């Protein structure tokens, strides 16, 4: 891909905006269409574009499969952890009302963190699938 300078330049230009858009979809999900799942897919697309243009080896340097695996589990744990936090604050599981002094703020915080967990896991799952299908994740 070294000779395709147009692709490289355009990709370099696009990737930050794709990832920024992913974050917008992620954090604007409370007020408009969007949320963790869509944001995770968009974020992963930005990364996959990088790996396609600049080579999978470079992609693996940016995000090693081991780190990706930790993110994969971390997102799930963040989601489940928010639920447990509700339990520890003497509410029910996934009870957001008790997360802050004001129940409305609690709801806001709860859904924000849960969606973040979803976003992280979805993005890492997409990337993990990409790694596996690109044949680089054999027995490693």
């Amino acid at each position: 891909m070294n000779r395709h300078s147009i692709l490289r330049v355009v990709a370099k230009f696009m990737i930050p905006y794709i990832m920024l858009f992913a974050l917008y979809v992620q954090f604007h999900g409370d007020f408009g269409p969007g949320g963790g799942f869509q944001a995770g897919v968009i974020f992963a697309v930005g990364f996959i574009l990088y790996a396609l243009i600049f080579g999978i080896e470079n992609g693996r340097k940016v995000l090693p499969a081991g780190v990706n695996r930790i993110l994969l589990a971390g997102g799930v744990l963040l989601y489940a952890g928010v639920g447990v936090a509700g339990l520890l604050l003497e509410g029910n599981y996934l009870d957001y009302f008790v997360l802050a002094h004001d129940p409305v703020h609690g709801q806001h915080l709860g859904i924000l963190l849960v969606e973040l967990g979803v976003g992280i896991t979805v993005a890492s799952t997409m990337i993990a699938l990409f790694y596996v299908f690109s044949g680089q994740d054999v027995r490693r």
Partner: protein
Amino acid sequence: MISAHLPILQVVVPLIAAPLGLLFRRTPNLAWLLTLVISWLTLAISVALLAQVLTGGPISYELGSWAPPWGIEYRIDILSAFVLLIVSGVGALVILYARQSVEAEIPGDRIYLFYTMYLLALAGLLGIVTTGDAFNLFVFLEISSLSSYVLIALGAERRALTAAFRYLVLGTIGATFYVIGVGLMYQMTGTLNIADLAARLPDVVQTRTMLVAIGFLTVGIGLKLGLFPVHVWLPNAYTYAPSVVTAFLAATATKVAVYVLLRMYYTVFQGHLFAPLPVDEILFVLGILAMLAMSAVAIFQTNAKRLLAYSSVAQIGYMILGISLVTVTGLTAGVLHLFNHALMKAALFLALGCVFLRIRSAKVDDMAGLGKAMPWTMAAFVLGGFSLIGVPLTVGFISKWYLILAALEKDWWWLAAIILISSLLAVIYIWRVVEVAYFRARPAEAPPVTEAPLFMLVPMWALVLANIYFGIDTDLTVGTAARAAQFLMGVGS
């Protein structure tokens, strides 16, 4: 305080532990230890829940403090508490057994994945049973199914991959049919909460939409539980999966699917579905066919795991038969056999796991002379086989006793005769293994075989002794099953 949260902890504890299993990539023994602690913890929670339900009646838990029917409700009644006990009890014993068997059958760098997937499957199965929401049930069905596809694919032979793929295709069709059925129910009632559905469905049950929903639900759940004509995924999946996985799935996954069927038929539809669509008669015929045809097919198998897999399909026939009688005694027999069959099949498959560990084969012919070489393992197999046949003083006898009582209650002598014939077929296929193991000498050129390690013998024998204990002291099993059956039929408490 903690006792109020037991319904959610039952599911969340293994669910949170599953991703933590990824930490132990290079230290599989720690992954095993984590899984062991978690599975015994879930068993303790199940026991506490059953005690709560037996004394205080059904428990309801509001997820996120949103009141049902708007929020998701977890609801534990006597039937779910009983099934929870089966799943977590078998899970706890199987994992105690698992360490050496898994080391021998799964490559070292994948063992941590096995434990992660096992915990996910456990969480999914427990979730199906605890939830009181028809769609949430679908989500847990997918969690448990997807992880069991991976568990089966971890088998040593490459054929495990095709077996897992076939299960994936059929299992996905089953889950999709289930969700189509739930969607149609939602369309007619506007609710997904099972208790709320039960209140609203009687008004609309005669509509054509509901007929289609019942059809989709029955076929979808039938695919998951290995109902006779749609069981084709089951024999290969059980044969090529790692031994521990086979024992775990055979004792829990199909039982949980039977639970879903009971829940849909008797809690959601409250038995009203049999008037517009005679599913009870259809299931009755399929149950009898499964008992006879699958037992007969089991006789001709050369692989002992596949033999027991076909026997499982036949035994599911007994449960379906009990359920399809639509009487309290029939349901008691069906629910009772859920528990009893889990005990016997887990014991038998664990015995085959010990055999596989030592001779690297599950073929009947390769088991020649094992009666002498592995006396404890083969004795466990024989006792488990007795239980499967229904010899008195074992749990198998109790199940069949109640099933025959249910048949006689309707004055159907011929049905009692069919049950006996099917039991005789079980004698033949169990005898085939016993004959080879005890009455055929081990070939001279075969390498010497020693008894399985103690860590595997103890959980296996615990299950075997449970087969005998619950065959003599039936207070817990028959008492709970009878109460569950009365609860489902809406008589008594």
